[in-house]
């Protein structure tokens, strides 16, 4: 079941949990044996603390949800001092999702995280749709992504995964720019920009009007983008977006993903991530794949 994503990031199996949907792992420890996961990606963290957006931050949609949390977190230093000591000895890969609003913030944050022995990788978030002057400004142009990835690459020596925004015209171009700037892998997709209105009140349902759409409803879009990106780059692709069960995960791998992340589905079944890992294994046995890596890009067209 092992997947090697390069530069020291080796997953026990291809299943990780997506940032912002799994807390720091502790929130799910009653339901999930973390040792049965390939990794967990902890909540989006910025150099300085952020209170996030006002309530309400969530709206349910058909087969999905919108959120506009806005990167509420206590900052990199708090993570290092308070959270890291609690989670560093988990028997799984702990990746930090790093976001920022300026180039300097990204670089400084990455430098600080580089010093943490038990964090084998950063997932660089250049695609949060909910923060003004936020990371997405970097993630939606090839020049923006080249700049932030190349600057972070200079100071960060471990595995650098770059999380891509789907809110772009051509995601393959963005992925190629990230690869050229030194990314070790790309993960996609972050949430799709959306909106919800309460017609009776004639008001938006979210405090900042727009938010990011996630859940089962985004899966076809995510699958298409993973397919396009996997054909365009040589670095590993990590697929996410609406994966709710093992079959969904297998589809992403067939489309070219080397690993997957489980996001919003964790809210509906807190134990879903390990079930997906078991289910992928079962699929491989049933279809005669000796290793899970054989699934990557095995789509027959």
């Amino acid at each position, binding site marked *: 079941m092992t997947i090697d994503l390069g530069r020291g990031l080796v997953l026990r199996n291809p299943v990780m949990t997506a940032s*912002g*949907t*799994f*807390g720091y792992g502790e*929130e*799910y420890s*009653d*339901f999930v044996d973390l040792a049965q996961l390939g990794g967990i990606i902890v*909540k989006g963290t910025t150099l300085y603390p952020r*209170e*996030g957006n*006002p*309530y*309400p*931050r*969530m*709206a*349910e*949609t*058909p*087969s*999905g*949800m919108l*959120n506009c*949390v806005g990167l*509420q977190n206590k900052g990199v230093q708090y993570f290092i001092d308070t959270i890291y000591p609690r989670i560093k000895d988990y028997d799984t890969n702990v990746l930090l999702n790093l976001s920022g609003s300026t180039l300097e913030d990204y670089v400084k944050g990455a430098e600080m995280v580089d010093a943490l022995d038990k964090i084998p990788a950063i997932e660089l978030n250049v695609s949060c749709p909910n923060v003004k002057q936020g990371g997405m400004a970097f993630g939606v142009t090839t020049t923006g992504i080249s700049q932030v990835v190349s600057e972070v690459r200079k100071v960060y020596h471990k595995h650098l995964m770059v999380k891509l925004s789907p809110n772009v015209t051509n995601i393959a171009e963005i992925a190629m720019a990230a690869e050229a700037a030194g990314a070790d892998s790309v993960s996609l997709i972050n949430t799709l920009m959306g909106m919800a209105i309460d017609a009776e009140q004639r008001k938006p349902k979210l405090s900042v009007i727009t938010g990011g759409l996630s*859940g*089962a409803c985004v899966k076809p879009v995510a699958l298409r983008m993973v397919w396009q990106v996997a054909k365009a780059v040589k670095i590993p692709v990590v697929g996410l977006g609406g994966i709710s069960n093992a079959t969904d995960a297998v589809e992403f791998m067939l489309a070219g993903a080397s690993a997957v992340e489980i996001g*919003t589905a*964790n*809210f*509906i*079944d*807190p*134990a879903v991530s390990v079930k997906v890992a078991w289910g992928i294994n079962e699929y491989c046995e049933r279809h005669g794949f000796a290793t899970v890596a054989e699934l990557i890009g095995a789509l027959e067209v």
Partner: protein
Amino acid sequence: MKQIIDFKLVEKQGYGRSVLLQLRTGRVLPEIRPGQFVQVRVDGSPSTYLRRPISIHDVDFERNDITLLVQQIGEGTRHLAAAEVGDTINVVLPLGNGFSMPERGERCLLVGGGIGIAPLYYFAKVMGEIGIRPTLLLGGKSKSDLIRLADYERLGETFVTTEDGSLGEKGFVTMHSVWQKQSFDKIYVCGPKPMMKAVAKLAAEKDVWCEVSLENLMACGLGACLCCVEDTVDGHVCVCKEGPVFNTRRLKW
């Protein structure tokens, strides 16, 4: 410890817009404190996606039963209310922190508004087990909102207000004459936010300790998604994990 349990619906009783669902499991229930809540999965409803957070109305540890009082306010709760005896209902529990238990000898007032009366039943029952007989003040729009009133009356002296005057004193809970006649050491409130704010204000004026149970919109129920935050003196905190019960001094109301 939190668990995901498939319960069987063993009994169901309708009360107007609300329904009482008695759920049973073959597993041993974990410890459940008054004011904690559950997240119920809604199956087969195309327009809903997430679980529904529902307060715990009652617990029977001998039978391993929990009882939920569900008001039909949207698609999710309508679907839950349509479940039939024998159906399986998937529940994550127990969630949140619940009410602070009072000390023996303290005079406690439990104020419930609308479906907010639901968790006060289990709370009053547990209080009775440690020798406290609380006073209950329950409010509704009309008498049909005041479900199982006789059962509440068994747990403590119970006062009622209705907005239309169909039962008890006419008006809001904050207008009831009990506020003039009795004094309390602790006030616990669950109901619509404007009602809880009004009671919190009254409690502050009287300088009485007060806890409220919030019901902000939430997704995970576990403190992971950070959607259900309330603004507090400590910044944005998750209602699902640090609440749903808060001391009003902590809230920026």
